[in-house]
């Protein structure tokens, strides 16, 4: 068994008295698409915010293993270093593009740290150093590659806010990919897309995962996307993990169906009892 790329252990996030995530543990493996699903308010985006450093978790450990074997504890890194040192990129549920900047500029901002080093912290850049010009040319080439890939190359010089919704979603993915991440966290990438756009998105995500060695962690409500592309599914409900496994197994899990469709009260008690026995067994096994 290889070391997982991302290992979340006993993650707990409390806001005052509210426990948004309670003792969550899961793993995401390299080269796989892991989906995080659950009903509204289950705490999926909170998990994302913990992984990408927007929240500091109350308890728990988030370990990211770099290709050279170095392990980084994401909860201890400052917010911006999670992208730069940890190489974790993300998109947002409500799209956050730099609307007044062109598509190309959006993708160049994503390569900020690389370019900043090349420009000698701007000092060489002000005097027009050749090394910076070369770095900028490479950055533009990378941006062009991702614009090509997401089918936005014709609009490279337009303002990002001018794009239609579906294109904005793809641009956000392209922007995240320009940081050359190991792990790409996508928060509902298919929300608001029509079925055709949704199919294109599936292809894009699969190609990102297979060709660029970028693993994907995905929050999604659109089950057709989740079931088609993900290798591994983690189901959350009320901040706790209720199922974890390959898509087909999860789809037929009674607890998952109960969480999504709702059940009668006595059934809940029955299920809880079942969970208690399973847990007791699990503990017994562990000992």
């Amino acid at each position, binding site marked *: 068994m290889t070391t997982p790329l991302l290992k979340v252990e006993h993650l707990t996030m409390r806001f005052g008295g509210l426990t948004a995530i309670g003792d969550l543990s899961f793993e995401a493996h390299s080269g796989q698409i892991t989906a995080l699903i659950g009903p509204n308010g289950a705490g999926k985006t909170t998990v994302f915010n913990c992984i*990408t*450093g*927007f929240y500091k978790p109350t308890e728990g450990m988030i370990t990211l293993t770099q290709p050279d074997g170095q392990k980084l504890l994401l909860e201890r890194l*400052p*917010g*911006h*270093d*999670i*992208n*730069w040192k940890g190489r974790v*990129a*993300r998109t*947002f549920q409500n799209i*956050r*593009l*730099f*609307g*007044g*900047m*062109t598509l*190309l*500029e959006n993708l*160049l*901002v*994503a*390569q*900020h*740290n690389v*370019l*900043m080093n090349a*420009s000698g*912290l*701007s000092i060489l*850049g*002000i005097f*027009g150093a050749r090394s*910076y010009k070369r770095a*900028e040319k490479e950055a*533009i080439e990378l941006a*062009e590659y991702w614009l090509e890939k997401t089918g936005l*190359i014709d609009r*490279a*010089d*337009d*303002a990002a*806010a*001018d794009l239609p919704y579906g294109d904005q979603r793809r641009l956000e993915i392209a*922007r*995240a990919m320009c*940081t050359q991440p190991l792990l790409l966290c996508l928060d509902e990438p298919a929300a608001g897309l029509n079925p055709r756009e949704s199919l294109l998105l599936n292809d894009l995500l699969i190609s990102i995962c297979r060709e660029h060695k970028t693993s994907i962690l995905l929050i999604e409500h659109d089950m057709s996307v989740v079931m088609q592309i993900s290798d591994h599914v983690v189901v959350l409900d009320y901040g706790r993990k209720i199922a974890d496994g390959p898509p087909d197994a999860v789809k037929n899990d009674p607890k998952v169906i109960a969480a999504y469709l709702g059940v009668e009260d006595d059934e809940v008690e029955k299920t809880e009892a079942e969970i208690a026995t399973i847990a007791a067994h699990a503990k017994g096994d562990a000992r």
Partner: protein
Amino acid sequence: MAQASLDAKPAAQPTRFERAFKDAFIAALVMLGLSVPILALRAEQNMSNEVILIPRPWLVVICCLIVFVGRLLLGLFVFNRAPGAKPLVETPSAVKTAWAKFAPYAAQVGLGAIIAYPLVALYLGGPQGAIKWIDNFGIQILIYIMLGWGLNIVVGLAGLLDLGYVAFYAVGAYSYALIATKVIPATFPDLGVWAFWICLPVAGILAAMWGVILGFPVLRLRGDYLAIVTLAFGEIIRLVLINWVDFSGGYAGISSIPRPSFFGIPFNASESGFAARFGLEFSPIYRTIFLYYVILVLALVTAFVTIRLRRLPVGRAWEALREDEIACRSLGINTVSTKLTAFATGALFGGFAGAFFAARQGFISPESFVFLESAQILAIVVLGGMGSLFGVVIASIALVGGIEILRELDFLKAIFGSDFDPTQYRMLIFGLAMVLMMLWKPRGLISHREPTVFLKERKSISGSLVQEGHG
């Protein structure tokens, strides 16, 4: 008339003229009601100190007529125009094509005009007359252009609303004044003539350092809170300068600050002075012209650095920060240090401008660094269009030059009486201009944004898509 036509065709809609006429008539009635108590009688004292009332019926009639005609014209040509109607004043296509040809060269032509300005003023006004035009107009406007460009980095690019920018201007001015009057004479008296050139970079660096010191605690705040705290910092610096008398001279300020030399040659009437060395007759105009070119070069350096920085990752990060701070953080941009660089770069140019100001005036006191100065610099940036260098130039000329022009309008005294002082109306005019701008061009004179990089063609981005920043 309106009534009659309504009676004749009760079902028909009133025509535009009828509506406008009725509207104008009502406005004239309102004017009549207002003007009778205000304008109709003039109270004066006669020889025996009794109040006598002079009726002025014609003034009332004239005012009502002006309102009536004005309102009628507005009603006919401006209000309620059909959508898609032709614009009121259509730019002739010849003018448009001429402008399209001229526009790419506008910057060069403008720069040429600015470089030639003191020589033209000298030629037209002679050595005595030109000083006023070069000093009060040229240098004054250029100082504000430079301050506007400096603040533009903080407010226009990074989107951090800074209401205390004048603090850095003060730090620059006092750094130069104190080093040149106290430190240099005490340590290296021989360097006295070089004081300005030594202190200029020092003043800038000290101001940038204060920018970082003030920015560090402030930058975790956003929006209104940031604005209020920067305002407070500006006031704190001024109050320290007033109250720390041993250090800064308090209200009395610092006087006899050394004036800049022509790279080591002082501007004075002595044997080794500028005029004698170059075989010219001594005149204060040479110093003024020299100062003009110094501030011009400083301002151009500011513009050059700003243009370059915008195309560098740090400049793009500033603009990205203005657009969306959270997205910036998710892309690995250290938002704190990026904001601090914006604050420090803006403060650096404020410091340069401050050192120049102290050298030009020869005297500084805390009076020069009141909040109104910050407000005026901010007004220049907002009026010009946030982020636009060219807009700042136009706004500085309009605001600073406009106020100076008011002093020159002596002919108005012939109309309004000899005790009429047009400069007293400057705040009124300033406020009115601001209100008109908010109605006409709420995003400033030049609101569109030029992209910093492009693949195929450079398309300017409409101002409505560009965020203004939340601090």
